[in-house]
């Protein structure tokens, strides 16, 4: 459905996108995640033909998008984009949702039917006569989504559609993406800085950092096997510890870290510099040395405990900095306090080894 080859984009001297290659299949929900300023919006704008790339090519439905304004308009009419802060016309909700249909010369009962259906889909039935500029942020975002859905685009581009919304509106928009769009076999390309939202919605994801698409794959791959330190950091792998492989016996490696050794599963050879990545939720804590099957067990001292909701983030000094994520209830039952001695353990399979 969509293919991007060697896409480069600059604003003045600033290089925003660097050599992006990407392919999105028909009916797929592809989510680009990345920190703010990584180039996600620019990528969507280029794909949405709102801007022309400095170099590189975009293929839509197998055909290269050329420079002629007429050809670009034809392709643009097969997609729709919803932005982070959607602008609504100073007109009724009906008129706003009907806009894309009107520019496609749709009129009469068919137009009315499509607008009404789109409004019902986003839960705004009965809002048609209201001025769109008097709506709340969540309602405005739903009008923008209805406006895009009304034209039944083959490719829907969503640029951080929930970035400015409250949790209830966010959940409503997410439900729309998962239910309505997936059912209609629409192809979706979405950008978000919320990795968990990406994980919830995506069939496939791409991690965009500093203008480079560092990794693409299904959400599981991205979150469990990040290909580099930057991706690991972005996907919430808080424990990223630099070390050197000191032994490798049939894929079980020892990574030397500040006088300690972490056991992990990896194909890296002896002497190679690596990072050991451990997700905080993979770490268990015990008052005494654990006798479980976990291959890694380190005594340490709690340096900080931060409670948030039902969870607690426990920071420790085990000769190296380690962060564990446990439930608040566990913290209370174990009566964990800053300065307490503790044992942290994790399995060798819970360590993700990244090239250093």
């Amino acid at each position, binding site marked *: 459905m969509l293919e991007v080859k060697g896409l480069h984009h600059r604003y003045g001297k600033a290089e925003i996108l660097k050599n992006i290659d990407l392919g999105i299949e028909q009916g797929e929900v592809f989510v680009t995640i990345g920190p703010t300023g990584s180039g996600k919006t620019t990528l969507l704008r280029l794909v*949405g033909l*709102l801007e022309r790339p400095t170099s590189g090519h975009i293929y839509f439905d197998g055909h290269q998008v050329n420079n002629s*304004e007429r050809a670009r*308009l034809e392709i*643009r*009419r097969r997609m*729709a*984009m919803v*932005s982070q*802060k*959607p*602008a*609504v*016309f*100073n*007109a*009724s909700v*009906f*008129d706003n949702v*009907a*806009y*894309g249909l009107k*520019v*496609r010369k749709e009129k009469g009962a068919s137009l*009315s039917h499509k*607008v*009404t259906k789109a*409004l019902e889909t986003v839960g705004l039935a009965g809002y*048609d*006569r209201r001025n769109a500029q008097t709506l709340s942020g969540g309602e405005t975002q739903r009008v923008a989504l209805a*406006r*895009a859905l009304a*034209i039944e685009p083959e490719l829907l*581009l969503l640029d951080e559609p929930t970035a400015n919304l409250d949790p209830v509106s966010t959940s409503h928009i997410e439900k729309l993406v998962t239910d309505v769009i997936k059912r209609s076999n629409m192809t979706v390309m979405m950008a978000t800085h919320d990795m968990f939202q990406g994980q919830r919605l995506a069939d496939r994801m791409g991690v965009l950092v500093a203008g480079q698409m560092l990794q693409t794959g299904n959400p599981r791959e991205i979150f469990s096997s990040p290909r580099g330190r930057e991706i690991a950091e972005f996907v919430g792998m808080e424990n990223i510890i630099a070390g050197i492989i000191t032994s490798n016996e049939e894929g079980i490696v020892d990574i030397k870290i500040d006088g300690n050794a972490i056991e992990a599963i990896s194909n890296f050879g002896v002497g190679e510099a690596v990072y050991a990545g451990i997700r905080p939720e993979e770490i268990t804590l015990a008052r005494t040395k654990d006798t479980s099957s976990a291959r890694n067990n380190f005594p340490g001292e709690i340096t900080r405990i931060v409670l948030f909701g039902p969870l607690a983030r426990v920071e420790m000094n085990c000769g190296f900095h380690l962060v564990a994520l446990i439930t608040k209830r566990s913290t209370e039952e174990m009566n964990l306090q800053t300065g307490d001695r503790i044992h942290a353990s994790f399995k060798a399979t819970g360590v993700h080894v990244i090239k250093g």
Partner: protein
Amino acid sequence: MHAIADAFVLAVKMIFTGDPEVYSITARTLEISLSSTVIGALLFVPLGCLIYFNHFRGKRTLISIIQTCYSLPTVFVGLLVFLVFSRAGPLGVFGIMFTPQVMVIGQVVLISAIVTGLTISALSGVSPAIRETAISLGASRFQSVWAVLKEARFAVLTAILVGFGRAISEVGLALMVGGNIRGYTRVLTTAISLETGKGEVALSLALGFILVALALIVTVLANRFLRVKEVDVARSQGSAS
């Protein structure tokens, strides 16, 4: 104070007794000023769009020049039009000097800068996101410009009304190129000027009241038209849904 009250009474009498001279002057004034405003709007609103939506070298300078021309003296415009359309002028061959037509042309020139400049200002007041939204929803270049123009409709109408105000209230140009010929090119402003010169202050004031009333009526009607349009749109959408 007495003179003003007398003038007001006289003006009301003239309007309600159907004074043919007053009616003829008023009708001609409206005809000439509305014609020049409509022609000016048709020419200079698009010109404002053209300047606003295109990027070219010297755009800022051009806008500054246009803004400077807001206060172009009417006699200076009158002089230029006179030079162009007088027998010896480059367009003298048309023989339209001292006719309502040349007065319309002069007023169109007079309001050109105001309508163009204020249209540019009106469009600048619309968020760029509006045009981008229109384009992202499949609008062509023209459709996207139209969407922005619709967003700026109140400000653009204001630009046109300011142009109308300038056209209907100018006197220098009408005198110079119209000649204030009774029953032909005499308009409210030139009539006021003439009657004041003759010492008919009460009549001048009466005509002045009519002039102000006319400007007020046109402005109110234009604003009401826009509001009615808005309500109609909302109603038709409501019934369609």
